[in-house]
């Protein structure tokens, strides 16, 4: 388990990093939790590796004007313990703390995770439920992409060649919102077989706002808009959960078939909705 040889670079600025990517043979190294295993298996053999860790400011988690900005190089552990995250978008913190194990959370970064777009990553469920935006930078400048449009297919995102994820931007969850990330972990890899992230806001006896993100079930994370609409339209949690994943493609592997994954997504959506409602004020 030894990777192929490569050249290693630690640019000091984003501009420098972008320039290094120009010839196409380079890969960005953030925490390395996805890239390094692939390189060791020789499934990935980049000619050069561009490590972002010396670029200042990419790690910061800040809050401004009702939005939280999470630097792409923030680690899962930094996110799970961040007071800003805990206070302003706790759903993301809950998803971060569900990732892998402490060693992986200490190294792995949110930018690396979203760029890799593993169909079984934890974050995307929360990010689509939070209506997060992914901030991308290229030689041509910056742009943002909605999370629900960012995850296009398995390992496929809306990023263009030469773009780097620089931050994730999330609107504050309102204090009255309830939230929950529910996960069924694969017994070996710890990846979610299915993960469901839910946000709800109550209005009297009804639900004023519902957001449901699902990961692991299909080739990419998605928002269960049909279920959200049912909840917001006054349907019960059970009725809403029952339509999660309708019309979506499913993954299957040795551990869980597509049919079972869809079923799990529904069961855990129901449980996550119930849990989120108990947390909502």
């Amino acid at each position, binding site marked *: 388990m030894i990777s192929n040889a490569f050249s290693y670079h630690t640019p000091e600025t984003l501009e420098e990093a972008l320039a290094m990517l120009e010839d196409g043979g380079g890969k960005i190294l953030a925490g390395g939790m996805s890239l390094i295993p692939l390189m060791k298996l020789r499934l990935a053999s980049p000619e050069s590796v561009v490590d972002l860790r010396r670029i200042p400011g990419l790690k910061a988690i800040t809050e401004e004007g009702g939005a939280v900005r999470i630097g792409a190089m923030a680690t899962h552990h930094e996110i799970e313990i961040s007071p800003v995250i805990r206070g302003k978008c706790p759903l993301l913190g809950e998803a971060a703390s569900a990732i892998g194990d*402490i060693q992986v959370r*200490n190294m792995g970064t949110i930018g690396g995770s979203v760029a890799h777009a593993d169909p079984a990553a934890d974050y995307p469920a929360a990010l689509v439920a939070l209506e997060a935006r992914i901030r991308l930078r290229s030689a041509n400048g910056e742009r943002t992409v909605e999370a629900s449009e960012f995850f296009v297919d398995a390992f496929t995102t809306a990023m263009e060649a030469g773009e780097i994820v620089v931050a994730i931007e999330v609107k504050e969850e309102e204090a009255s919102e309830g939230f929950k990330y529910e996960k069924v972990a694969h017994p070996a890899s710890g990846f979610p077989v299915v993960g469901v992230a839910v946000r709800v806001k109550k209005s009297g006896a009804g639900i004023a706002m519902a957001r449901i993100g699902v990961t692991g079930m299909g080739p990419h994370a998605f928002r269960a808009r049909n279920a959200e609409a049912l909840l917001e339209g006054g349907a019960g949690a059970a009725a809403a959960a029952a339509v999660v994943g309708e019309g979506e493609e499913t993954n299957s592997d040795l551990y869980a078939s597509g049919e079972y994954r869809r079923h799990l997504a529904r069961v855990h959506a129901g449980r996550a909705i119930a849990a989120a409602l108990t947390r909502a004020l």
Partner: protein
Amino acid sequence: MKQTLTLTINGKSYSDEVEPRLLLIHYLREVAGLTGPHIGCETSICGACTVMLDGMAVKSCTMFAVQAEGRSVLTIEGLAQNGKLDPLQEAFWNEHALQCGFCTPGMIMTARQLLADNPSPSEQEIRHGLEGNLCRCTGYQHIVNAVKAVAKAGGA
């Protein structure tokens, strides 16, 4: 292709010419001559290679040595001070928290962060905190006991 790597391991500074692809675990074992961190799986699952990097537990088989440039690594060899065992080492011994011992150095390093983050963990919190370390011998129960014992005695 080689580049200079300078870092601190167990308080001692090292500087060597290394290939970028050299894994940190191989640097620690083959270049720096340590025997505590072990290689058990290579897919970032088993945690036998766990060391602390700037105070945080990491899997040294899933890091290139060059990523540790300028940083500080603590391994199991750096725990005992002046021949006095660290409380976790002592507790692992007292509670029979190891059999073949191969996973032990990594397990202890992870437990160290676990207790640093949460000085009085519940049994479930201990078990979850050790999610990234596999032991094939003990069934984990004595390991849980060892971590509990250290927590009870006031920390690592």
